[in-house]
């Protein structure tokens, strides 16, 4: 029983961190109707941002640099959105759905190789938030990971607050429901698009910054989290915020239980990513709208 509990704790702790990044993705989809295939690269940029920031300002407690990293990457997101995504909504692009897939995929390709060219393939670790491990029920968890999870939980709560209680949140929800109706009420959907994209990639970057010291950063560190995010939002329901949180926890648990219980231990870890992928494929086939399938927030 202890084993089950310890696997559950591991899964949930990671789940909260996954949720943050997945939420960013679902937000972008909800407002812009675009799956950001470069989401993993923004995660990666967040990791590099915090590493470089802490190298430049070594005295600062690492946790304070997390939002800074997020903001810096969000600015990059704004630039990209205006240059390459805005034309989609101004009817300048022939086939917007395919264009969206390809241009974000192209961005991913570009950013990955840019990071490789700029910073080389060597892994880098910023200093940890806190050293050591903490006893949590039957198991020990790395304190760093716990901090990352806690921060994610905090930010998730903050975001839910913003979405549900503030004017900005209302505006975002309006645009996600009906762009034209929102325009009638005076909400500029172009600006909302940019804000949503910036927020979305900012969340991915924060995720990357939080995990940078636990897993280290390399140019391709975003590849696995990206695929995981697609899985989560499809499972939860693309565009649904509660969906992305629930989906993230489920995937966290699936990866944990999968490795922990797969009958053949020699393959158990090897197939870790495959468990989520299979669920992903099944959901797409059987219930594409996911658990909470709604398009609005």
């Amino acid at each position, binding site marked *: 029983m202890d084993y089950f509990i310890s696997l559950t704790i591991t899964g949930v702790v990671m789940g909260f961190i996954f949720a943050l990044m997945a939420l960013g993705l679902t937000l972008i989809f909800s407002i812009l109707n675009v799956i950001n295939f470069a989401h993993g690269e923004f995660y990666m940029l967040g990791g590099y941002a915090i590493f470089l920031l802490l190298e430049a300002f070594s005295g600062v407690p690492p946790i304070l640099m997390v939002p800074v990293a997020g903001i810096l990457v969000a600015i990059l997101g704004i630039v990209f959105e205006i240059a390459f995504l805005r034309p989609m909504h101004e009817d300048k692009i022939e086939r917007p759905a395919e264009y969206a897939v390809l241009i974000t995929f192209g961005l991913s390709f570009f950013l990955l190789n840019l990071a490789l060219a700029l910073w080389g393939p060597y892994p880098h670790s910023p200093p940890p938030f806190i050293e050591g491990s903490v006893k949590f029920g039957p198991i020990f968890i790395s304190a760093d990971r716990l901090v990352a999870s806690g921060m994610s939980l905090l930010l998730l709560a903050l975001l839910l607050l913003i979405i549900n209680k503030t004017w900005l949140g209302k505006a975002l929800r309006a645009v996600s429901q009906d762009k034209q109706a929102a325009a009638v009420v005076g909400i500029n959907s172009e600006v909302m698009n940019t804000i949503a994209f910036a927020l979305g990639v900012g969340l991915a970057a924060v995720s990357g910054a939080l995990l940078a010291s636990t897993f280290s950063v390399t140019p391709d560190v975003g590849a696995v989290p990206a695929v995981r995010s697609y899985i989560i939002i499809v499972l939860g329901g693309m565009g649904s915020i509660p969906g992305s949180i629930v989906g993230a926890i489920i995937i966290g648990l699936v990866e944990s239980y999968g490795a922990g219980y797969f009958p053949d231990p020699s393959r158990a870890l090897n197939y870790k990513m495959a468990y989520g992928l299979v669920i992903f494929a099944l959901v*797409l086939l059987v219930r594409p709208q996911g658990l909470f399938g709604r398009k609005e927030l």
Partner: protein
Amino acid sequence: MSKITNALRQPIALAALGGLVLILILPLFVQSYWLHVLITAYFYAILASSWALLAGYGGQFSFAHMAFMAIGAYVGGLVAIHLNVPLIASILIGTLAAGLAGLIIGALTLRFKATYLALFTIAFSEILRITIRAEAQITRGDRGLKLTPLFPDSISRVPDYYVLAGLLILCLAFMYWLIQSRVGLFLRAIREDEVAAAARGVDVVRYKVLVFVLTSMIAGIAGAVFANYVTIITPNIMVLPQMGLVIAMAIIGGVESLIAAAIGAILIQISLELLREFGAWRMVIFGALLIVTLRFASSGLLTTIFNRIFKLGPKAELRKGTDGGATDDGT
């Protein structure tokens, strides 16, 4: 006969003929190492043009193309090794296996729109790759599966060159024939407006799946043949960045023209080889080119340049119509 000579008067046909001649005589001028580069380039050209057919023409932007290529390579290779099947038969079996996979995936994704198709095919490709790597007892995983060469008794690369060049020409001819036929007509109709096409009696299901099966078979045969040329395959041939490379080649070349996609692939592969000293920056430039092409020259960089030079294409047609010949860019 006059139909052929008329067809030959088209610039694109002449270019194609010129290209054909070029391809056939190149081995006389070119050293073994560059033959290897060209053979690899033709391999990518087959993949890029068949992906252009599926995506640009058929409107299905699938990310499973490399997976079908890998199925062709691995099934062909495994059948040859474990069942002692002779080379040509193993290649054909690999191709059929890829076609079967294409049938399944094509059928499963019938109703999927662009985003869902992309996601599903990514998932399929990754699951396949992980499985191939993990089941190393059968596939030898990362250690690599060793295959018999295409021409075991020859030291020279020239016969392999002609095989791959011939395969490229054959595939392009086949795909062009397909486009000219009723299938092409129906595909275009489906791409433009699926509902209207169905209303007019086009069997949407049949043609959507058909194009999937045919392009996956082309990818499969390319994989099987190329694998036997390289004589070793690992799951790394189907990592997502490889799929990205093929997509980039097709887009930069011109996703709606098969030949442009093929030429794009060849030129890009040669450039990548020539620019080797630039290391990782090659790909950065390439990535930037991809994004810019998508945004500003969506029919493809090559296609756009070709149209500009030869004053073809819809923009030129418009210009001719409005001011009787004089162009606004001074030429």
